[in-house]
């Protein structure tokens, strides 16, 4: 069994190495036909960019993606600088007509995204030519290796039951060198994905065949991400199934998040695209889905006929009605631990890291400040977006809606939710985003805290203050602080993962939905002591 596990690890690492190495392979160039059709497709009105790009990419030289990217970015830069210089010149000459004319020649967009688009067409190399073979050598080996590593645990972990042996003695799960390595890898991955998509264009080739078979289109880096997300979740869900095979709550919950990720977040949107409908994830509720009320999205929905309208209405109803009503009955867990994609990744890929979340009072304070600031931020931004949509004005009180949206997208959407949210799993635990950042979680938290039937019941006086519950709470809730006082846990941040209850060696905790009365029950003297004393002290 150990041998299988080790060979699995080796296969996985080989797959990972090939995957990483793929970035550096291939050569990128266009012939003039391909180039012309690209220019036509883009409909650039400016000649300079054509020349510059042609010089850069129509070549028989053997250039790699980094060189290619720098040439393309340079071409756009030269062209844009040229027209900016003209704008300044006409501006000083007060030649307004001429100045105005120049704007159409400027090319907007993030340099690396422009470069990605071109690179996607320009690649020639093993990955671009043999996507299926390369898929097998990267994804294939990775998946098989990971499964071979995970499945022997059915036997190696021993009988069903909580098996956390060695977690704090292991360099992977105790911020050791493996943890830091995983951290660097994940953070780099997210930085590449969000900010340097052209550098990972070779990866995108690998999933072209799959994308074509689902949506009919070639893959983008977002398709790659979606696909990888599903693969990682599925493999790590197998690990969850094995680790918690004695615990039906965990099994059902894992199945549920996996289903919603694969079907709702991945397949349905891609299939919608195949039928020329807007890409939409029906479970992704505003304000997590922060661009739902952006002008471009509303425009797209409104121009997509009845179906677009349906999405619009559903999106609003989801946030205003479905989400809070469900939280009232079941707690926010129904979303965060049973449905949400971010939660889904945290509960599968992130499960090995849950013990790393900080439990200090200080981090609780920080959490409340940060997460509520994000909520305010998203609401203000949405206010701006709606104002812009209805009034047509592109700025409010002198601030451009677009600027606010860009800042949010960069700081919160990319850096916080992605780079920090997932990249920091191996260091700060698996729910960094859900705990400190997610505005939807903040909203659900209010409902859960003040108007809900959900609580974690503490079983009378049975707690021995051992601390397993607090240690394994991914949300950094000091569960023990409540349990050892005989008090139910009613906290806005609890995502109802149920792991505190699972790891408790004394059967003290139970997640349940019951009457609101008596849900919050501060006690001083615990059950089991003198009845008269309890009466005297607890009811004073």
């Amino acid at each position, binding site marked *: 069994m150990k041998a299988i596990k080790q060979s699995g690890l080796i296969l996985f690492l080989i797959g990972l190495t090939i995957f990483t190495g793929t970035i550096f392979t291939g050569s990128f160039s266009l012939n003039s036909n391909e180039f012309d059709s690209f220019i036509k497709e883009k409909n650039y009105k400016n000649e300079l960019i054509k020349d510059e790009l042609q010089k850069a990419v129509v070549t028989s030289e053997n250039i790699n993606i980094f060189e290619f990217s720098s040439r393309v970015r340079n071409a756009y830069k030269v062209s844009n600088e040229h027209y900016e210089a003209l704008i300044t010149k006409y501006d000083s000459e007060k030649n307004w007509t001429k100045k105005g004319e120049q704007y159409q020649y400027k090319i907007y967009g993030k340099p690396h995204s422009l470069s990605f688009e071109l690179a996607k067409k320009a690649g020639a190399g093993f990955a671009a030519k043999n996507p299926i073979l390369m898929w097998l050598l990267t994804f294939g080996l990775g998946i098989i290796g990971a499964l071979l590593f995970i499945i022997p645990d059915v036997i190696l972990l021993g009988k069903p039951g909580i098996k956390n042996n060695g977690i704090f003695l292991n360099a992977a799960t105790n911020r050791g060198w493996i943890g830091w390595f995983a951290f660097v890898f994940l953070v780099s991955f997210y930085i590449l994905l969000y900010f340097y998509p052209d550098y990972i264009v070779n990866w995108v080739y690998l999933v072209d065949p799959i994308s074509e078979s689902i949506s009919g289109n070639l893959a983008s880096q977002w398709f790659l991400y979606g696909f990888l997300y599903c693969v990682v979740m599925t493999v790590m869900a197998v690990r969850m199934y094995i680790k918690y095979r004695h615990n039906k709550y965990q099994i059902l919950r894992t199945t549920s998040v996996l289903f919603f990720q694969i079907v709702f977040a991945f397949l349905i949107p891609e299939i919608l695209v195949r039928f020329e409908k807007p890409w939409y994830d029906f479970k992704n509720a505003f304000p997590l889905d922060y661009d739902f009320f952006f002008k471009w999205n509303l425009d797209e929905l409104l121009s997509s006929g009845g179906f677009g309208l349906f999405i619009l209405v559903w999106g609003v109803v989801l946030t205003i009605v479905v989400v809070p009503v469900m939280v009232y009955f079941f707690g926010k867990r129904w979303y965060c631990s049973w449905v949400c994609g971010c939660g889904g990744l945290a509960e599968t890929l992130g499960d090995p890291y849950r013990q790393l979340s900080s439990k200090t009072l200080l981090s609780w304070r920080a959490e409340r400040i940060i997460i509520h600031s994000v909520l305010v931020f998203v609401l203000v931004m949405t206010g701006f977006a709606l104002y812009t949509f209805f009034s047509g004005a592109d700025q409010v009180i002198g601030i451009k809606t677009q600027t606010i949206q860009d800042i949010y997208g960069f700081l919160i959407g990319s850096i916080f939710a992605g780079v920090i949210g997932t990249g920091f799993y191996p260091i700060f635990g698996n729910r960094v985003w859900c705990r400190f950042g997610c505005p939807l979680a903040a909203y659900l938290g209010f409902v859960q805290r003040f108007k809900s039937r959900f609580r974690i019941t503490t079983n*009378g006086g049975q707690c021995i203050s051992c601390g397993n519950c607090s240690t394994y709470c991914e949300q950094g809730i000091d569960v023990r602080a409540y349990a050892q006082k005989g008090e139910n846990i009613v906290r806005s941040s609890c995502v109802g993962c149920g792991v505190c209850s699972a790891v408790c060696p004394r059967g003290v905790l139970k997640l349940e939905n019951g009457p609101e009365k008596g849900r919050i029950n501060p006690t001083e003297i615990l059950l089991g002591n003198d009845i008269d004393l309890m009466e005297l002290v607890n009811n004073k």
Partner: protein
Amino acid sequence: MEHIVIIGNGISGVTAARHIRKNSDKEITIVSAETDYFFSRTALMYVYMGHMKFEHTQPYESWFWKKNRINLKKGTVSKVHSNANKIEFSNGEELSFDKLIIATGSKPNKFGWPGQDLNGVMGMYHKQDLENLEKYAPNNQVCKRAVIVGGGLIGIELAEMLHSRNIPVTFLVRENSFWGNVLPKEESAIINKEILDAHIDLRLGVNLKEIKADKNGNVSSIIIAETNEEIACNVVGLTAGVTPNIDFLKNTDLEIGRGVKVNRFLETNIKNIYAIGDCAEQHEAIGQRRPIEAVWYTGRMMGETVAQTICGNKIEYKPGHWFNSAKFIDIEYQTYGWVWAEPKENEARFYWEHQSGKKCIHINYDKNTSEFIGINTFGIRMRHEFFDKALTEKKSVQYILEHLADANFDPEFYKLHEPEIVAKFNIENNTNIQLKKKSWARIFSA
């Protein structure tokens, strides 16, 4: 301001301090020789097993003490000068008190076995024992085999700990079945099997004769009294029960027996000196309880109670219905009320075991009146409140079975065995009890 000094920063001492703070402004000092901050002794095993780090076993962050104006003092108390209202530390320092609470806990029993003080022989009680274990049994290269002497709750925890690092364990148990003096034979048999299934070499009905050393004074083997068998080992764990940790009180005016003798107000024979937790011994046992109760919960309850008395609300220590819990490797155990190893004359039993052999419930009730006396459960979590109330209200065994769904505390979606349990009872007793559906109204009608 009155100065309350508490010797011992375990659950009993700390609970007392917290409650005194809640109810008064008195100056409070907790003294301990073991650690700077309170930690949960019950969690020591998880540190060795790598489930937690030591700091995770500390229920309060370090700012807590300052914020609540509880002074912490590290040091070993060597004498109590009761007439001068002073305690003396081993380094000669002194500290005066107005009221003193002795909460010094227990220490592992040593029965004078030859070799019991060799290197590699240890109890599993204090933090230092954990450090010792880490030193002598870091892995199965250094420790090729460990022998555990004494089959109680701490013994099985130690076995599980060593097992988690793949260290072979021989487990010597004096009784003929694990914890057979406390548990009925059915439950005890389940645990025997659980231990053997974990490939722990369980030896029932045997005693330790002596521990032998190599030339460096390290443990090399043990000899079993009954068979004279010699078992080579590098570590010996002594877990044959605990005794109150009160040697430093000998030759004082305090009345001591096995523990510090206290009355129902937890007062010792000397005014203004109290004793609570593992080290306190009741003059007369309370109800069916033992005079010394070395469990977490009673330490906590005594702490809660003595704080009331010290803050002017003089109140007797009057623990409610007995309850306890433990985990035997993978099997969770809870108990409410009394289920003795052997039924008493007026008692009848109902036992159900799941086909897996890992879950069971055992109910004890009065043969004549059907009054419910207690329940043991393995592998099924039960609601403390439900049974506490049932015991107070003297419910019948029929009532318990009818309402098993209210009592169940397993996580959601778990398979429920109640219909099977009730059916078995009906067949055995020729009754027609119908299981009631879970009702929040009943659960909450406290």
